[in-house]
């Protein structure tokens, strides 16, 4: 039982991380029909902003040494700036381009960011201890719960509540949902396109910053392609959740994370190295049964 509960917390924590990343991707897809593969590289930028730029093998903390509040704010600002800049320099010129062009452009942008990171910080992964006090445990009976994983789950819930409140309780959130339903129509009714798109990049950047911080605290390692792993799973999450549905993105993230963790915990030892093969096998089955994802969105097919 204790093993199960620990695995469950593990699973929810990993699922939360994927859900946050998937939400960042899903949000931009909803507004721009952009499948942003550079989203993972926003995560990388956030992580690297914690240390002093240098090729040195050992990392010197920069923003990472600040108090929690200014640290979080600085990382958020840097990642949001990167997200807005990527729109200004790349995606802005592709507003009327088909979604495939946007996707390829996001691939290119991602590789560009990775190589810039390599050029500035060197290719060796660096270790950094962010918020080491979070790696302690709470012991309840014979269950040991890692504080960090509870923090991950709670932060995710807090972010989801905040985002839902924004989308459903404010006029700008309403404009975003309208633009996501029918962008052209929203513009005919006076919803400013640049504003809504900018807002989507800001929120997407904030979500990426959150993933950065949670991921670095968890792994303690920085590498130029660290975001890639997360965004790959997050992308799968948005697909099985149902492209264009934010609820679907969250649900998909949880399904991928939870399934992955439980496979890791309960597969026979010999089969564990093939965990991802089992995971993707389940994903394929899920897509065979529900090709348009867990949450079906009307009208997406004709617009893509």
């Amino acid at each position: 039982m204790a093993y199960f509960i620990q695995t469950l917390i593990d699973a929810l924590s990993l699922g939360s991380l994927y859900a946050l990343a998937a939400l960042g991707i899903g949000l931009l897809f909803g507004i721009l029909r952009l499948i942003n593969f550079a989203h993972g590289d926003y995560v990388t930028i956030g992580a690297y902003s914690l240390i002093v730029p240098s090729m040195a093998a050992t990392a010197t903390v920069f923003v990472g040494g600040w108090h929690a509040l200014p640290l979080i704010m600085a990382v958020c600002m840097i990642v949001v700036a990167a997200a807005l800049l990527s729109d200004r320099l790349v995606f802005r010129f592709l507003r009327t381009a088909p979604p495939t062009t946007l996707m390829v452009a996001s691939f290119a942008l991602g590789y560009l960011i990775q190589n810039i990171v390599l050029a500035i910080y060197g290719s060796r992964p660096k270790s950094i201890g962010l918020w080491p006090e979070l790696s302690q445990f709470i012991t309840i009976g014979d269950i040991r719960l890692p504080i960090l994983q509870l923090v991950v789950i709670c932060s995710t819930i807090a972010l989801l509540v905040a985002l839902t409140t924004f989308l459903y309780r404010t006029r700008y959130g309403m404009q975003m949902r309208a633009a996501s339903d029918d962008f052209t129509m929203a513009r005919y009714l006076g919803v400013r396109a640049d504003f809504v798109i900018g807002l989507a990049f800001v929120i997407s950047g904030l979500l990426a910053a959150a993933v950065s911080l949670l991921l670095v605290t968890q792994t303690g390692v920085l590498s130029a392609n660290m975001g890639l792993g997360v965004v790959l799973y997050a992308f799968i999450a948005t697909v099985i959740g149902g492209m264009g549905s934010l609820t679907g993105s969250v649900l998909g993230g949880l399904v991928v994370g939870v399934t992955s963790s439980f496979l890791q915990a309960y597969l026979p030892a010999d089969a564990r190295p093939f965990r991802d093969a089992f995971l993707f096998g389940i994903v394929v089955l899920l897509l065979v049964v529900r090709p348009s994802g867990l949450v079906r969105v009307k009208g997406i097919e004709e617009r893509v």
Partner: protein
Amino acid sequence: MNSQTSGGALLTIDGISVSYGRMTAVRNVSLTVARGSVTVIIGPNGAGKSTLLQAIAGGVRPSGGAIALDGQMIVGRRPEDLAATGISLVPEGRHVFPTLTVRENLLVASHVVRDRAGSQRDLDRLLDLFPRLRERYSQPAGKLSGGEQQMLVIARGLMTRPRLLLVDEPSLGLAPKIVDEVYQLLRQLREERGLTLLINEQTSKRVLKFADTVYVLRDGSIRLSGSAADLREGTALSDAYFGSTSHHKSWVEEENT
């Protein structure tokens, strides 16, 4: 009948053309919409009617020609800015925001008004005008029937407080009884608010009774224009519509019965 007796043209289109790639959808079209009037563009499917309205609302950019609203040149301006200057397009095919509630569909269009109390009053008045929308107030718009969605998009188009309302095929895909209701509403709006209307239709039966001025658009060009009263008589309208003089003489008579 209405307060805007100043007359004159609210909208003047001078020789605009619109192309999609190599295909020209609208060719050198000129037309005038008088303030407080109802102008109707009649034409078969694919004549370029929708493109014309989209060009006026800023959705597509003409390759040449001029469009003026109240004497102000508006070609090249963004749709959201044109919405703020008083053009509202109710597009064909009932583009409701399906996941937003009826209330949200209406409120999202009030952004350009910048007067929240005023928008709330607009909303209440529109709900009086469209009582069925009041019943559906908190439901997602995607769940409404076709007729209800058409009412919603017209009501929504009015939330921006337009000077010029462009309505693209309000009767498309609706039962005749619902179409009558929609037109009754448009008439009411015109009489009560002095709203200027530019409407696209494929058929002429209802709009001829309703319109002041009629243009016939076929293959991207204006084939005929005149006052609705004149065009109700004779076969000029059907000739222009079908591009022939012999076969379809019975068409207008059928439509008018």
